[in-house]
């Protein structure tokens, strides 16, 4: 079961990442209600205390809001959601660039490589 998680990162952060992913994709939209802590714990097969930490962390990041007695909801503040989207993209790009640089690729090669790849993926030949 622990195989579902990266052993070197706290589980509460990995679950937060999965929620962020769903929000960015639009599977969870502004104002949507998150499952209860217990239901999320069962779904991920982790301790409910871990999920509470996830929800607290997302709340500190202003991405979700807890309404007393009602549950936890994705924020309706569009600027926060846009920030989240931008931040995740920068993280992915940083990781890609760091690895490419470590292998010795130049900036031009990376840009060309990306253009080529995106072109092929979309079936464009021009």
């Amino acid at each position: 079961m622990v195989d579902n998680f990266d052993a070197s990162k706290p589980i509460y952060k990995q679950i937060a990442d999965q929620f962020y992913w769903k929000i960015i994709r639009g599977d969870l939209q502004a104002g949507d209600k998150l499952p209860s802590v217990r239901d999320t714990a069962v779904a991920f097969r982790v301790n409910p205390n871990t999920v509470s930490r996830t929800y607290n962390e997302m709340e500190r990041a202003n991405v979700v809001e807890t309404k007393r007695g009602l549950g936890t909801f994705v924020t309706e503040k569009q600027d926060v959601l846009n920030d989240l989207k931008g931040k995740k993209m920068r993280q992915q790009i940083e990781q890609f660039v760091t690895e490419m640089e470590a292998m010795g690729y130049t900036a031009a090669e990376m840009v060309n490589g990306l253009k080529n790849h995106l072109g092929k993926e979309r079936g464009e030949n021009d």
Partner: protein
Amino acid sequence: MIELNQVGKRYLAKTALHDITLTLPQGGITGLIGENGSGKSTLLKILAGLVKPSTGTVFINEKKTERQIAADVAYLSELDTFYSFYKVKDMVDFQASQFPDFSRKRADDMLTFMKLDPNSKIKVLSKGNRGRLKIVLALAREAPVILMDEPLSGLDPMVRDSIVTSLISFVDVEKQTVLITTHEVNEMEPIFDRVVAIREGRLLGIADAEKIRGEQGMRVVDWLKEQYQL
């Protein structure tokens, strides 16, 4: 809260526990891990008031542990201790008659979740279903402290899975203090708040499971190996 102060246990020629001093806060799930014969079960029995320590003191919620501590502590033994002529529901009735904190509603919910038929005779239950019934009887108590000795041991993956899920679903981790001994460290790791490592009756270490992963970048099982090598 569980407080052990310089607890030791000697059996005739063998010392099972040496000078264990340990405090566990209220709430959360703690894994007690270590190799066979390390003293895990003895420690659990002392907490359950089933074994008297040779030295030291043990308090659970400020009460000294003795046989009467069973009112505060739900203990799940490694062994099967059912009357084989009972039906599942008789066993539930018996447990309810013994413990005022037994919740029939939780027991019914758990029997449904575990797909156990209240009218089955215990002697015809499979080993896996007997394992499930034991979990129902222990977790249906709203006891402040729950002690489980090797709840997954010898059971197949389906049964182990249903037991782990029932721990997540039915334990109130904010209020109930749960201590579980296990060999299945990888399987149980995601449900532990913290782990305690023991070896040859001595306490090696205690750590927050998320900190082991986050600060040391290790799995709990690797942490345990490291504790054993120190």
